[in-house]
């Protein structure tokens, strides 16, 4: 009945202790989060994951505007963090957890200064939000940004094969 997408799974070996790896991933989120991955109208100044269960994931812009994009579901230092990426049919934050994709990150200590970090990003199909799509069609608003974004992705995808 529903279309489900396979999760994206990635892992990487890092020359750092599991504690340091976890700390850089979370407290140091801004030091590595790709700047272009931001939904606001102005450039991203600081990328933040609040370091506790229930914490917000957001990007801060120059004028102080904060653009939420997810929530921390589980906070288990230094081995696991589960957070969401939940952007709706208006290409905006959707607070409904049923409309959230999930990102699980696990940190495995392979040695005192060697850690494997595994990322699984899943439930992409939840992001297709029929309620908002329906509303957007009725009101005639909200679509262009979403479609532009999707179209760019599709174009990028086809241009890279």
């Amino acid at each position: 009945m529903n279309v489900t997408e396979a999760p994206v799974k990635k892992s990487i070996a890092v020359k750092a202790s599991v504690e340091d790896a976890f700390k850089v991933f979370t407290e140091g989120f801004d030091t590595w989060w790709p700047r272009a991955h931001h939904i606001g109208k102005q450039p991203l100044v600081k990328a933040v994951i609040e370091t506790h269960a229930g914490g917000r994931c957001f990007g801060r812009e120059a004028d102080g505007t904060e653009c939420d994009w997810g929530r921390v579901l589980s906070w288990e230092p230094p081995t696991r963090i589960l957070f969401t990426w939940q952007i709706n049919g208006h290409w905006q934050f959707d607070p409904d957890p049923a409309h959230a994709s999930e990102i699980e990150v696990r940190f495995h200590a392979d040695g005192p200064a060697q850690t494997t970090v595994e990322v699984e990003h899943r439930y992409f199909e939840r992001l297709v939000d029929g309620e908002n799509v329906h509303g957007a069609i009725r009101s005639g608003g909200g679509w262009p940004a979403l479609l532009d974004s999707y179209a760019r992705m599709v174009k990028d995808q086809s241009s890279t094969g």
Partner: protein
Amino acid sequence: MLEYLIARPHPVGELADHFDVSRPAISKHLRILKHANLVRERREGRNRIYELNPAGIEALRAYFDRFWTDALAAFKRAAEHKNHGGLT
């Protein structure tokens, strides 16, 4: 509209019955979705059938597949930089 198409393919007339807007407005939105590769169209006799384009939904997954490759490489640089005393 995508919600209906996720459930199953629909003839355009049947899709229009779900919405309180004109048939041309439905057709216009289907064209936009088709242009964005989110849906695709095929003919069955006289009917035009719209269905979800798996490649369109797949595009979002593909975006994150590339995103996480890049993001983890950046994370590795940051973590190893910290380990060598670059950050406090």
